């Protein structure tokens, strides 16, 4: 059985069980003082809102240049994709693969994955609880790695700073991309994984 059915609330922060007092408007954890909720309030609506904002910013993040390389008066703008292609042309396939996975596959997968997770929790379709849980854990774990390109830009801007000889300037694509990463991470955090199990038929279907 679930803790919620036994009249117990689990603290989000320290995982302590607290007896539910329905007559109290706000309840706090006896151990750490954290705010108690049976489920995170408006988890689905908030996650959708964050996800949609991230999806909108995803477009400029991929179209606008993330940085411009100025060398001897010539400027060359790089988008996320052209950066990967350039690495492939240099023959650095393993690094190109890492950047491709971190900056293109992961953000796309996260947007689609969270949307699928929300849809399947709301419509009780089309994934089993086990698949949803694996998806949720993967998204939660992988999210931070998309920040890779932002850190690369920070390092390149600092180190390639030779005045008119050669310099690198960040572009607005980078701002949009950083926002996408932060918003999708927030979306994964607002999503309450217990909702995944709430609408499965039996709570003992773990076999």
């Amino acid at each position, binding site marked *: 059985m679930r803790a919620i059915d036994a009249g117990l609330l689990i603290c989000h922060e320290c995982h302590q069980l607290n007896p539910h007092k329905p007559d109290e408007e706000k309840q706090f954890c006896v151990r750490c003082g954290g705010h108690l909720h049976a489920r995170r309030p408006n988890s689905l609506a908030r996650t959708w809102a964050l996800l949609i904002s991230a999806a909108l910013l995803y477009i400029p993040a991929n179209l606008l240049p993330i940085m411009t390389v100025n060398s001897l008066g010539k400027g060359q703008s790089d988008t996320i994709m052209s950066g990967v292609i350039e690495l492939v042309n240099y023959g650095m396939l393993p690094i190109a693969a890492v950047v491709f996975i971190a900056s293109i596959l992961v953000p796309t997968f996260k947007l689609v994955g969270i949307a699928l997770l929300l849809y399947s929790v709301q419509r009780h379709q089309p994934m089993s609880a086990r698949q949803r849980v694996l998806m949720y854990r993967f998204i939660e774990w992988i999210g931070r790695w998309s920040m890779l390109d932002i850190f690369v830009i920070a390092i390149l801007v600092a180190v390639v700073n030779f005045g008119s000889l050669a310099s690198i300037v960040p572009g607005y694509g980078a701002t949009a991309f950083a926002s996408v990463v932060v918003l999708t991470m927030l979306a994964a955090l607002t999503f309450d*994984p217990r909702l995944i199990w709430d609408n499965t038929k039996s709570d003992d279907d773990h076999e």
Partner: protein
Amino acid sequence: MAEPASSDNLPALEFERLIACHECDLLLRKPLTSAGEKVECPRCGYELYTHRSQVVRRSLALVITALLLYLPANFLPIMQLNLLGQVTEDTVWSGVLGLYSSGMQSIAVVVFLCSMAVPLLKLLCQFAVLLSIRLDIGRSYGLLLYRIYHHMREWGMLEVYLMGILVAIVKLVDLADLSIGLGLFCFIALLLVQIWLEVTMSPHQIWEALSGEDKHACD
């Protein structure tokens, strides 16, 4: 493995002897754990807790090491680049400054938070929490700081930054004369110590020690 608690024997069990899975809300009987044992949720497989020995003493040693490495890791040069006699240096801090001065204040703030501020605040919170357990003072502040620590966990990204350094090195190595600085080794050391610390400081033992439920939780 922990056993699910069913409704027929529930009234007999006090809720102090139960735990619930944080990820799926399944109610379980609190298992008796000995050192080195891992407890997983039978339904969703979430790792409920691991019991380790000498948590506080080991974690304190690690947290102090990490704090000592923090300054050299962030302010010593990670790499130096030589282009036709002009030499530039890169540190974690100069990366933030470079973004800031090129008009990208918002990304500069994000990079500063994820690579410098959050990792430091996390270490300081862990240090204060461990001291409060060790010296038996200020437990309520310890609880608050440990809660703050858990909210920051997701946002410290040292391992991603290290991957960023590697990608940047690969991109630059053909363009100019590149040499690796001492800062990179300090940064790697800081990252390793921090990962070791997170593995050592098992949260449920720290919570129990902070709330004084179990005097021997951290032996």
